[in-house]
């Protein structure tokens, strides 16, 4: 295991937290620690949490801090190697064969290889961050296939041989936990569970993300969202929804709507489920009045 305690000038969780802040991501101590450990140990970082708590944002911020390009691989059921790894440019190979005529030609040369996210990250480990997004959506075979990549950081292409990363690439995996990931995958990663932030931090996040929102608005939204999260809803509003709600309410208010009304009318950006909306509807007025008080 190659340990680097200093990555582009970041030598402690606190330093990383500072850097993330300047990339507009407010990290708490725990996520800063986990991210720092992942970078220093050269292991993939596995972020789990409810939808909308900022897993993908964290990955983007880390890429920004490191000054690297973010390569995103969105997972889905049935994703396979040709979508994740590499593919040959078959039409081009075909044309090359035709054009070559009697001459000899290597149709497995560099120019015929189409890079997919994992190969791209492997080839430029010092310039990229690989984000494997929503790994819980992929099927188990893909998870097993990832294991090989994540432990050795090498890929074998039958026609060309094995490609190995010069250094360990930065890999971030996210999961919404719609299903439990395999133990073997968790084991290979540095793990962090992102929960909902406390109200103080959430208000700061809203103000950082949506600059037009006044502090009082942000606090009211945080209070209201906090109450909603305690209700048995099928989809609780995440941080992203809270930011949207604050922004939408501010927009309506600037357009002339009065305060509690602006909140109420923009509830659709926070709750996006008909059943949830009708469940909360009778108490919505009281809830918002309490939150804005």
């Amino acid at each position, binding site marked *: 295991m190659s340990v680097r305690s200093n990555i582009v000038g970041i030598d402690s969780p606190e330093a990383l937290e500072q850097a993330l802040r300047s990339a507009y991501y407010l990290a708490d101590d725990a996520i800063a620690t986990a991210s720092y450990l*992942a970078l220093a140990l050269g292991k993939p970082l596995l972020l789990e949490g409810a939808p909308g708590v900022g897993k993908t944002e964290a990955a983007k911020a880390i890429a920004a801090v490191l000054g690297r390009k973010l390569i995103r691989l969105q997972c889905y059921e049935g994703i396979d190697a040709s979508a994740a790894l590499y593919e040959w440019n078959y039409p081009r190979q075909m044309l090359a064969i035709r054009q070559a005529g009697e001459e000899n030609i290597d149709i497995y040369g560099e120019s015929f290889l189409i890079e997919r996210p994992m190969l791209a990250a492997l080839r430029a480990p010092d310039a990229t961050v690989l984000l494997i997004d929503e790994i819980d959506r992929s099927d188990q075979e893909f998870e097993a296939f990832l294991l090989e990549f994540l432990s050795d950081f090498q890929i074998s292409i039958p026609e060309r041989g094995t490609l190995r990363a010069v250094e360990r690439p930065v890999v971030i995996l996210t999961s919404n*936990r719609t*299903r439990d990931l395999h133990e073997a995958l968790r084991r290979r990663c540095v793990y962090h569970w992102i929960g909902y932030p406390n109200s103080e931090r959430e208000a700061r996040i809203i103000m950082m993300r949506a600059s037009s929102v006044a502090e009082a608005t942000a606090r009211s939204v945080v209070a209201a969202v906090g109450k909603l999260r305690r209700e048995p809803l099928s989809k609780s509003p995440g941080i992203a929804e809270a930011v949207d709600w604050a922004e939408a309410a501010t927009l309506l208010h600037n357009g002339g709507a009065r305060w509690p009304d602006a909140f109420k009318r923009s509830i659709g950006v926070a709750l996006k489920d008909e059943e949830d909306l009708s469940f909360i509807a009778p108490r919505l007025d009281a809830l918002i009045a309490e939150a804005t008080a």
Partner: protein
Amino acid sequence: MSMHVTLPRAAQPFVSFATLLRRNGFAIAPEQTTTFLTAIDLLGPRSTEDIRRAGLATFAPPPERFADFNALFRIHFLGEDTLSVLGDDEEETVRVQEEQSGEDEPPLADEVNEAGQAAARAEALVQRDFSIAARDEALRRLTREAPMALPRRRSYRRTRGKRGRMVDLRRTLKEASRNDGEILKLSRLKRRTRQRKVLLLIDVSGSMKQRTDDNLRLAHTLAQVSPRMEVFTFGTRLTRVSRPLQLKRREQALANASRLVSDWDGGTRIGDALQAFLAVPRFAGYVRGAVVLIISDGLERGDPLSLADAVARISRRAWRLSWMTPLAIGKNFKPQTEALMAIARFVDYFVDGRSTPSMVEHLLSFRKELAA
């Protein structure tokens, strides 16, 4: 590399923490312990909080066990005595596995002769014969149609298929390159499919007495046609009966299975039984991507919250979760008991579990869902 060298004394407590976690049911690989030590070294450590965070990040305990993890951490590093909190939980699950009522005979099924009059009795007998015939016919139908009807999933692998949707460019190109780049025919690819795992959990408690024998017969028939099938019975205890049910001869298979089960006609603690089931990683693995069928009336004597939690966890891992209950009547069944209401949102199908034919009908209906 000789690792026989004694560890530095300072590292000792960290290594023994990993051992403590393992002893409490956390799956921890040796490699993770090494990473844990390196992580602590990287962080300083400046406080016990650093050590705890390093532990969380490297041992990756599942979120629902964070409380256990933190309790063990406090016990180990801060010398706190919070064992009682953890102990309660453990005992709860163990009891389900070890409590024995020790009755080895399966109950006699279908003795519903409460009416005293001869005429009524005769009618009941006719009805019973009829239901037995219907049951056997349903089981035969299951044997016949299941290989085609049980749900399959698309595999990650592709295979050659004449009418596949994708063109196998790789193969086409290879063949073309043999013919000086002339494409004579297009090879095609299709996704391979595999039958999904089937997991059957049967309630054998007193309230399900009348159905137990039929349910086991159904399990046996299903086990014969589904190569990747697991069967468990539960009441006050959880028993795996998959192996005996693999036997081809039904009577012998059922007798062998019955011998394993020791909690016939007991009480029901479904929640605890399911929690016990999930606590064994090997068992819990059977749920992943499987067709999960739970046969139970949901008359819970234990904590409904524990039941809801277990069902939620099963539903997260399963492909489809069907709850077969004798209480479910008709398509628009709305659960009434507290336990069933609590789990309703995690269950994909509530199925009429009063008779074998209706259960078979449900098993074979997955085909329609796939076609849709």
